[in-house]
């Protein structure tokens, strides 16, 4: 009996000590900046990018049912194109499991910025007993012409990070700044989680090899704050993709009677100055 008790306590301690790394909805493609029109692959994966860890089933509710994504599209020169029908379900393998994700191939045509945005159905996170919804965008560019990068997508993104630096034109050592917004208004003192995509994406899985090692958990998921105007700044220490997730940017919301954290996510890519 006593032994049993110890085992239970041990398990409880283990459960508590599992680091609460951050969830990140990704819209992944290898290159943010292209020189000309190209056919590209985009992968929508809900995962833990630094650890290439547990990958969630996008849109899974507390009963285990999968709900389809609510919005996926492209904005170019101020025009939005609904691409929801083009999503194909895939299974994406992390280093520890597999999760239900989506991909699509699109022809990126036309000079300038192409903003891709994705709104999944809320995901039920059992360990926190809440729903999480990552309204995500990534800004790709052809031939260096700036057209849309600093323009809000607006509907269908209820919450959104508006960049103040071109997310595809960053040297390592530059800062990335953005404004956290909800329905177009800045979110004062927003809390933002920052994480590095620490493993290459190979097909529908993460590469085993990590690029960087974090000496402590506070450096796996970094937490920064926006100022009173919703503006945050982050110095980029390494080449690759960096994700920013403004937690609860949507305010106090409920889904299926539970708390809903509607977070605004953006991905930026830095390159080495060689």
């Amino acid at each position, binding site marked *: 009996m006593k032994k049993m008790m110890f085992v239970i306590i041990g398990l409880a301690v283990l459960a508590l000590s599992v680091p609460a790394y951050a969830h990140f909805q990704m819209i992944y493609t290898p290159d943010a900046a292209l*020189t*000309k*029109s190209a056919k590209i692959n985009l992968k929508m994966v809900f995962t833990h990018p630094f650890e290439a860890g547990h990958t969630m089933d996008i849109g899974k509710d507390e009963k285990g049912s999968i709900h389809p994504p609510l919005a996926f599209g492209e904005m170019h020169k101020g025009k939005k194109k609904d691409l929801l029908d083009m999503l194909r379900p895939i299974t994406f393998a992390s280093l520890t499991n597999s999760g239900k994700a989506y991909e699509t191939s699109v*022809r990126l*045509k*036309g*000079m*300038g910025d192409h903003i891709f945005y994705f709104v999944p159905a809320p995901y039920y996170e059992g360990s926190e007993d809440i729903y999480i919804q990552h309204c995500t965008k990534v800004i790709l560019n*052809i*031939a*260096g*012409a*700036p*057209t849309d990068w600093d323009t809000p997508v607006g509907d269908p993104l209820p919450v959104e990070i508006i960049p103040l630096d071109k997310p595809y034109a960053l040297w390592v050592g530059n800062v990335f700044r953005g404004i956290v917004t909800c329905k177009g208004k800045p979110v004062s003192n927003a809390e933002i989680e920052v994480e590095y995509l620490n493993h290459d994406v190979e097909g529908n899985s993460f590469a085993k090899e990590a690029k960087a090692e974090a000496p402590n958990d506070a450096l796996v998921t970094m937490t920064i704050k926006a100022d009173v105007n919703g503006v945050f700044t982050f110095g980029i220490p390494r080449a690759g993709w960096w994700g920013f997730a403004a937690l609860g940017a949507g305010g106090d919301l409920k889904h299926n009677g539970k708390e809903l954290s509607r977070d605004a996510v953006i991905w930026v890519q830095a390159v080495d100055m060689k």
Partner: protein
Amino acid sequence: MTKRFFIIGLLAFGLFLAGQVFAHTPLCSCYDNGDGTVTCEGGFSDGSSAAGVEMRVLDAAGKVLIKGKMDDDSEFTFKKPKGPYKVQFDAGPGHLVEIDGKDIVE
């Protein structure tokens, strides 16, 4: 004293002018429409329009085959030449972009 200020002022102004030259880069990108035509889009790195910029399509020998201007949407569409060709976006001295036809894909 005033003279020194004047010189500093001139230098500062000179620097300012020199900066302007590099402040924007001409940009041009073309794609093959797949229907025998090619569309080129132009612009500048500061986001300004390329409407009215002269466009030329040349053959391998450098002979001008087609000449035109960027439209109000900073676009220029032309019939794809049979042989090798190149496209020139000419926004004035130091602002010429040349694109080889073989780099223009669908």
